[in-house]
Structure formats: structure tokens, C-alpha cells
């Protein structure tokens, strides 16, 4: 049987139901009743002891949301979501404020263990400090803000970050402790009226991370969040806000896996980044949510709004994502290049298999002078999946000297999948330079046979070729994450070729 045909056969046989991370954690949860109303919004706000202005903000978003309709332009197909049939709030029952690892629910810790990503940070949490000056990547510090279901259960490293003046905490806490910052920036990049899902998020967001890096500070460690969706039928509405003040730098890592579900789970996160003059934000994501079973049932619906605002001159925002999970992905991490000489980057690996549908890409909006952007997108489609890159590059009338380079490469495994590239390019001034390159290729039988003749199994051969294909993007990830991402790609390919 030709190798590609064999791959196709194997893909058919994948038992997606054996999804590695499909398990449940039994912890008491406290949820709001099903459905969405002003009462539910008030319930959420009250649960979080929010100030009145926050409740007001949510209610305005909710009222706005009622007037909006779901977007249908993406190349994804799914049954209509009944928004009144979902829970909008679930939280582990609060015991008390957590200050150390011992106080975290052991069930939750076990969950992390099963993920095969035992908290690398456990050692750090337990106070095992690397020797001063040591820069072994495995020992580099990562601060975790663990989000379990909807509530952050542990925020670590606070002390050290505090010394540097960095604020890293659950956004629910930030609302109480730093209202002036939250009020100033929340919704300033993704306004409450932005789009259907972002507006929904604004009304009901549960929790997420808040980061503020003061002027001139280089954040002393990578900031990291692992989160998983755990409660049956619970919509997960993350809200993350990161502000890099003048001349500061921060790298933020986001990674997640979710347990198996029969019902589809809705996820509508919003991430806002603000970079002031000379500041840089690097935001990396590895996403591995439940993709659905072999019939295409279940799986996460992932409707995310991620946007960065290069507000100051010479600022830089870089998005790197590795997307392997979710039944539906609708996600366009974007950059508004407002400051002169600001720079936006988007590096993406999107792997789809089984019946997954991915419609992802970016928007680079050039407003300031001499702004530049770079887009490297690698889409890999296997099984019966559909993988679309959708990107917008636009230069405003005043964005003289704007430059963009875009390269979109797609790799097909088998002949039942599809890869699509939908670029939108608008230049409103004559000095803009936009370059766009796109390729689509099939994984070649000859290449596979060459590798197999040298002793690699079919699976290893596909893994090797795909890892080569995505190398440009993997290199953009922080070292700790690159290793994990490479493993994840291999794991998802294990699934894709048997």
C-alpha cells in the first residue's frame, strides 16, 4: 500500500476517544444555574466580590451582546450553540486563600500530574532555587498562575516579582487591588462591543491573568499559565490583560489541555496586550484541547479574541502559537501598530486532524509610520480536517513606510483534508511594502520512503518531516516551551498516523 494511502487508513482508525488527557477531576464545584441573564452576570460579579464599576461594565457588555449575532464568515461548520443551555460560572469551592502548594486541592495537583506536564515549577514552588547565575534552561524560572476551571487557585512567585515591581495575579484580584490599572486598560484593546464572542466574554468572564510590568523593567522570569476546562458544560471565559510600560519586556506562556467531553464546550477567551514606548511583549501559546472523537463529536469550540496594541513608539508585540486541539478554532491574534516604528509578529503552527476545523490567522493593522510586521504561518491538515489561514494586513493612510512580510505554508497529509489561505491586503498609501508568499504541498511519498529506508518508522518519518516543516516557528518559542511543543506535535502525529 502506498505510504500516503496507509497514513490515510491509519488516520481513519485513530481512536480519538483514547484522547490522552481525557479524564475528570472530582472536586466539588460551585456553579451558577444554566443560562445567561442579567441575574447571572450579577451572580458572577458578586461571587468575585467585584466593585460596582466592574458589574456595570459587565452589564453594559451583556446588554450589547443581546443585540449582536454570531459571526458566520469563518470556514467552520457546527451546530447552532444554545447559549441558554450553558453554565457560565463554575469554581472549585474556595477553602481559603492559597499561599503554598500544600494548600492546593490534591485532586488539582493530580490533574497536572496526569497531564504529563507535572508542574515543572513544583521544585520552584517548594523553594528549590537554582544557584545564582545559573542559566540552565531547565532551571530557568517560570511563574505559574494556575487557572483551574474558572478560578486561579495558585499564584506563585509573587514575592520575587513584587521586588521587580511586576504585578502578576488573577485578574479578579487585580480588579480589587489595582482598580486604577484595570479600569484604564481593560477593554482598551478589545472594546466590549468588538465582536459577538468578545462581548460575551466581557459580560461573563470568569478569571484570567493580569500582568503589569513597570517602566524600564525586564520581567525576571517567564510568566506562565496552564489551564484546563473541567466542568461539564461550562463555558470557559478567560480574560487576560498584559501591560508592558515604557521600555519594559515580558514573555508570557500560555498552555492548556482539556479532558474529554461528550457535549461541546464553548471557550471564548479575550487577551489584551498593551505595549508602551520601547516595550516588548512576547506571547506564546500551546493549545491542546480535546478535538472531538473519531466521529467528530464533542471537542472544544474555541472562539478567541487576542489582540495586542503597540501603543508606543518602537514597541514590539510577538504572538507565537502552536494549535493542535479543539474541534473548532476561530482565532486571530492581531497587532495594532499604532506607535511609529513599532513591530508586530505572528508565528503559527496549526495542526488539524480527524474532523477538526481551524480558521486562524492574524491581523496586522499598520497605523504608525515605519511600522513593520512579519507573519509566518504553518498549517498542517490530516484526516478529514479543514485548515484555513485567514489574514489581514492593512496600512492606514498615515502609515508611511509600512512593511509586511507574510509566508503561509500548508502541508496536507492524505487526500480527505483541506488547506485554505485567505489573505486580505489593503494599502492606503503608496509607500507601503507588502510581500505575500503562500505554498501548499502534500507530504511526499518519496520523502517518506527515503526516511523509512533509512530505518525510521512511518510515524517517525512523518514526525520528522513535519517538525522540519514547522521549524521556523518552533524556533520562536521560548526554549522550555519549544521542547514541549515539539513533543506535542509528535503526540498529535502519533494520533494522526496510528
Amino acid at each position, binding site marked *: *500500500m*502506498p*505510504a500516503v*494511502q*496507509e497514513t490515510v487508513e491509519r488516520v481513519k482508525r485513530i481512536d480519538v476517544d483514547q484522547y490522552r488527557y481525557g479524564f475528570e477531576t472530582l472536586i466539588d464545584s460551585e456553579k451558577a444555574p444554566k443560562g445567561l441573564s442579567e441575574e447571572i452576570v450579577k451572580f458572577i460579579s458578586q461571587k468575585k466580590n467585584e466593585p460596582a464599576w466592574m458589574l456595570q461594565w459587565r452589564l453594559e457588555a451583556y446588554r450589547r451582546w443581546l443585540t449582536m449575532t454570531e459571526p458566520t464568515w469563518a470556514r467552520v461548520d457546527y451546530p447552532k450553540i444554545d447559549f441558554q443551555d450553558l453554565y457560565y460560572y463554575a469554581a472549585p469551592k474556595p477553602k481559603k486563600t492559597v499561599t503554598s502548594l500544600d494548600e492546593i486541592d490534591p485532586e488539582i495537583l493530580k490533574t497536572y500530574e496526569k497531564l504529563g506536564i507535572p508542574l515543572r515549577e513544583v521544585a520552584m514552588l517548594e523553594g528549590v532555587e537554582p544557584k545564582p547565575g545559573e542559566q540552565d534552561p531547565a532551571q530557568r524560572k517560570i511563574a505559574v498562575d494556575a487557572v483551574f476551571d474558572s478560578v486561579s487557585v495558585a499564584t506563585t512567585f509573587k514575592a520575587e516579582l513584587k521586588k521587580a515591581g511586576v504585578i502578576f495575579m488573577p485578574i479578579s484580584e487585580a480588579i480589587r487591588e489595582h482598580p486604577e490599572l484595570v479600569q484604564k486598560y481593560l477593554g482598551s484593546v478589545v472594546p466590549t462591543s468588538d465582536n459577538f464572542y468578545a462581548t460575551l466574554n466581557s459580560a461573563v468572564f470568569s478569571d484570567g491573568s493580569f500582568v503589569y510590568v513597570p517602566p524600564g523593567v525586564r520581567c525576571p522570569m517567564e510568566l506562565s499559565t496552564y489551564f484546563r476546562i473541567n466542568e461539564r458544560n461550562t463555558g470557559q471565559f478567560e480574560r487576560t490583560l498584559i501591560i508592558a510600560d515604557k521600555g519594559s519586556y515580558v514573555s508570557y506562556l500560555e498552555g492548556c489541555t482539556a479532558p474529554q467531553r461528550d457535549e461541546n464546550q464553548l471557550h471564548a477567551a479575550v487577551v489584551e496586550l498593551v505595549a508602551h514606548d520601547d516595550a516588548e511583549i512576547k506571547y506564546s501559546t500551546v493549545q491542546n484541547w480535546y478535538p472531538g472523537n473519531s466521529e467528530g463529536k464533542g471537542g472544544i469550540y474555541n472562539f478567541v479574541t487576542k489582540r495586542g496594541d503597540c501603543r508606543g513608539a518602537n514597541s514590539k508585540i510577538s504572538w507565537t502559537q502552536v494549535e493542535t486541539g479543539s474541534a473548532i478554532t476561530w482565532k486571530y491574534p492581531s497587532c495594532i501598530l499604532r506607535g511609529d516604528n513599532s513591530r508586530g509578529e505572528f508565528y503559527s503552527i496549526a495542526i488539524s486532524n480527524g474532523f477538526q476545523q481551524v480558521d486562524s490567522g492574524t491581523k496586522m493593522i499598520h497605523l504608525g509610520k515605519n511600522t513593520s510586521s512579519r507573519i509566518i504561518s504553518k498549517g498542517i491538515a490530516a484526516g478529514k480536517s479543514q485548515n484555513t489561514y485567514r489574514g489581514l494586513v492593512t496600512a492606514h493612510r498615515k502609515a508611511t513606510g509600512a512593511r509586511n512580510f507574510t509566508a503561509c505554508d500548508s502541508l496536507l497529509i492524505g487526500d480527505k483534508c483541506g488547506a485554505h489561505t485567505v489573505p486580505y491586503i489593503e494599502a492606503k498609501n503608496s509607500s507601503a511594502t507588502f510581500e505575500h508568499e503562500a505554498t501548499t504541498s502534500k507530504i*511526499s*511519498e*518519496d*520523502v517518506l*520512503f*527515503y*526516511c*523509512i*529506508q*533509512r*530505518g*525510521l*518508522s*512511518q510515524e*517517525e518519518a512523518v514526525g*520528522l*518531516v513535519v*517538525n*522540519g*516543516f*514547522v*521549524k*521556523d516557528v518552533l524556533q520562536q518559542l521560548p526554549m522550555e516551551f519549544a521542547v514541549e511543543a515539539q513533543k506535542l506535535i509528535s503526540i498529535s502525529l502519533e494520533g494522526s498516523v496510528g
Partner: protein
Amino acid sequence: MALLEVKDLKVRVEEREILHGLTLTVNEGEVHAIMGPNGSGKSTLSHVIAGKPGYEVTDGQILFRGEDLLEMDPDERAAKGVFLAFQYPVEIPGVATMTFLRTALNAQRKARGESEYSTPDFLKKVREVSKSLNIPQDMLKRGVNVGFSGGEKKRNEVLQMALFEPSLCILDEMDSGLDIDALRIAADGVNALRSPKRAMVVITHYQRLLNYIVPDFVHVMSRGRVVKSGGKDLALELEASGYTQFEDAA
């Protein structure tokens, strides 16, 4: 026991029979040349021995040290010591040659139940071998065959042969696309690998290559069969008189 025994092999590609009962025996230490005109089935033979998909064996046997090769997956065959040097080595962008070599070598060793090479041991071995083949270190850092010249690609094949230490090397049209200097370097590399424990099957259209890699036996293929076998002089005879005389014999 012979290293390789091909017995009355019949092979089809998409309903068309290419090999019509081919027989060939190769012992350890021997170098066999297989010559023949285009379309005589030379490359098909090499592909079937290596296990390339797309060929249907309808009759006959291929035994490797007495084991049925056709029952093995291509990667198992590689681990057992079957190596095919490709006529057109493929490019694998983004995969450094060094990474590829190490992954492949360790995969073979693992399949044989041997320990994997440590990084320093592996690097040492690669440096040694590549130096003897005149392969610059920076070539090993580039993607597999990406941007390599014809000569570099073939040298990379010989490098792998030297690293993997197979007991059977099949060289498929190694001379195609090489100028004389590149050919000499590649052939020197191959000659250095000749050993009483290793056999080679050299597939070529032209006698030229056999000036550099001197065979013990020469077989002439025509229309899917071996029509004549002899010593190295047979190649010279062919060069003088051409293949047409065998067209009728087949």
C-alpha cells in the same frame, strides 16, 4: 548461505508486469553490477528489494540471509542491513542533516536491540566519516540535501552508507547527474566501504561507473530478466557492442 537470493521474481506496477521472473544470488563480499537499457527493470528491482510501496510482487521470493525480505517493512529491512543509495535523493527542508543521520542511525540500532549512540560518540563518528569523504561540516548543518549539488547529494548517500554500515548496499544509478570529479569522489567513498562482510549491487546504465567501482560480476538485464551474466569484462563488451544484441535474447 547467500546474503541475497532473488528467486524467479515477478513484479507488477499498476497491472503491468515489469519483472518477469528475475533470479540473482549475491554473497557476502561480492560486488555485482546490473546493467541494462532504460526500462529494463533495474530500478524496479532495487525498489522492490528496499520495499518501496507501489510494487506488487506476484511470484517469486527475496531472501536475505535466508529470511523472507518481502514479509518485512522497509524500516525493518534497513535495520537488518539493506541500504539503498537513491538515484535522486530527496530534500527534507528544516531537518538538519546531522539530526537526520542521528535519528536514522539510532532508529536502526534500537530496532536491532542495540544501545543508542550518545551525542559525543555520534559526533565523533560523523566527523571521522565525513572527513574521509571530503564533506564539509557546514553541509551537515544544512537541511537534508537542501541546496546540495548533485555531487553533494551522492556523497551524502555514501556518508550514510558509511555510518549505517549495512551488509547490502544497492547503488541505484549513482553516476547520474555527476561530473567526472564528483563521480570519482563518490566512487572512492564506495570503494573504501568494500569489505568481505559487505556486498554491493551497483545499478548503472553506463560502463563508465564500473571503471571506478570494479565489479566481481556483471549482469545484463533486458525486459525484466537477467539475460546474461559474466565477469567484469562483460561490461566492456557491452560498451563496445551496445544493448541491442540482448533485446532479441529477451
